[in-house]
């Protein structure tokens, strides 16, 4: 019996998404992620939407195991459904959804069967902007800009320098594109098909995917064997 149970725990992730980067701007939250799903080191799937709206007030972005992300979406779907069924003028805001997800993630971790994701949750409710992160071991926090995975190391320093309270939509997008470009150059599991989405008090939009322009004409790339020529 123990062996059957063992095979049902999550031990390693299989199809994974790379980083998500998000920031608060003047009217709400902006989030960006690429559309790649890697199967180990193979870039297997290139049209995975990793940014999804949840209810009226929240936007969820996920990196990590894609199947676990889909499971989370099912949990949230049920949560929002029951919330709507009350039909009483109250609704779950981003803070509540974040707290709920933290409980779920931490609970699963304690059972040694984690949902292998790092989630970014953003939203606006009653004029209050909210941006937070939860990861697979249940660590959660709130901040003005967040990122998952390699984004923490590559994108957040850029955001720390260049983020301010009053970014316009265009400035926010430019900043996110800058972060995603660095990730594209340096993260081997990134694909050049980026989706950006925004959420404001009024509505949530997930924009169609686009590609970033990259530059490879560095002189050092022109003659790659200049430093160590020939065979030995």
């Amino acid at each position, binding site marked *: 019996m123990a062996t059957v149970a063992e095979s049902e725990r999550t031990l390693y992730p299989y199809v994974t998404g790379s980083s998500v980067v998000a920031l608060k701007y003047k009217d709400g939250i902006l989030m960006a992620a690429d559309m790649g799903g890697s199967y180990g080191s193979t870039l297997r799937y290139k049209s995975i939407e990793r940014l999804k709206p949840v209810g009226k007030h929240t936007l969820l972005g996920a990196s990590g195991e894609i199947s676990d992300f889909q499971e989370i979406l099912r949990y949230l779907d049920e949560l929002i459904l029951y919330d709507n069924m*009350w039909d*009483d*003028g*109250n609704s*779950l*805001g981003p*803070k*509540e959804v*974040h*707290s*709920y997800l933290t*409980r779920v993630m931490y609970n699963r971790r304690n059972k040694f069967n984690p949902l292998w994701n790092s989630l970014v949750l953003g939203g606006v409710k*009653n004029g209050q902007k909210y941006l937070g992160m939860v990861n697979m071991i249940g660590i959660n926090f709130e901040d003005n800009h967040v990122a998952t995975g390699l984004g923490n190391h590559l994108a957040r320093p850029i955001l720390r320098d260049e983020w301010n309270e009053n970014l316009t939509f265009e400035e926010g997008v430019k900043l996110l594109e800058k972060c995603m470009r660095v990730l594209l150059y340096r993260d081997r599991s990134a694909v050049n098909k980026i989706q950006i989405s925004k959420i404001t008090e009024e509505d949530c939009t997930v924009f169609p995917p686009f590609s970033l322009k990259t530059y490879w004409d560095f002189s050092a790339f022109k003659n790659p064997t200049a430093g160590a020529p020939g065979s030995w």
Partner: protein
Amino acid sequence: MEAVKQGSAAIGLRSKTHVVLACVNKSNSELSSHQKKISKVDDHIGVAIAGLTADGRVLSRYMRSECINYSYCFESVLPVGRLIVQLTDKAQVCTQRSWKRPYGVGLLVAGLDESGAHLYYNCPSGNYFEYQAFAIGSRSQAARTYLERRFVSFTGSSREDLIKDALIATRETLQGEKLRSSVCTVAVVGVGEPFHILDQETIQKLIDDFEIVREEKSPPAEPQPGAAPGQGSSADQGAGADQGGVASMDI
């Protein structure tokens, strides 16, 4: 339902930003302490009961448990309407199973959530209604009559006026018996103010304020002990400023 009518009175009223609960203390004898009729359920919800207090205690515990579970999961306050529905569903079950008996207690639930201030009345039958102001328990009809006359003004009332109205409504149920702070309990919840029960001193001061007004309307028989000197003299239902100075209810 009969049990509710025989319990001692409980009164609730709400404005746009505050809800006040007041009830008459009943004790078995001179020697015993009085029954606890108002309970805090969470920082934003409180309940006053009338009827079988044991049943009331069990339901209060259930309500507290629900609020805490919701707070733990969602880190925000449980909307009052949802708590009420959960409570009444629980009560309804007892009316449909032959081996159970209904909860013999009427609950006046006062609460505040993002959709505003709420006052609900829960019946043992499993019905619930939302009220601007209501009174339950024995001799509550007098209070209800008073509230019916004045409820239109409650939405815009200040906190102090609302508490005063609650005390006056309580006095109506006493049918002639003197209103003293030892006889009643008052609790408030409002925007920026968590649910709490007011202490006896504060209540006595408020009672003295409007008792003076009443005394002056009829020829004063004797000087009131502990009367607020002159400050309450021109105070009427409308003047909030004076009351604010005398009753410093910062808890």
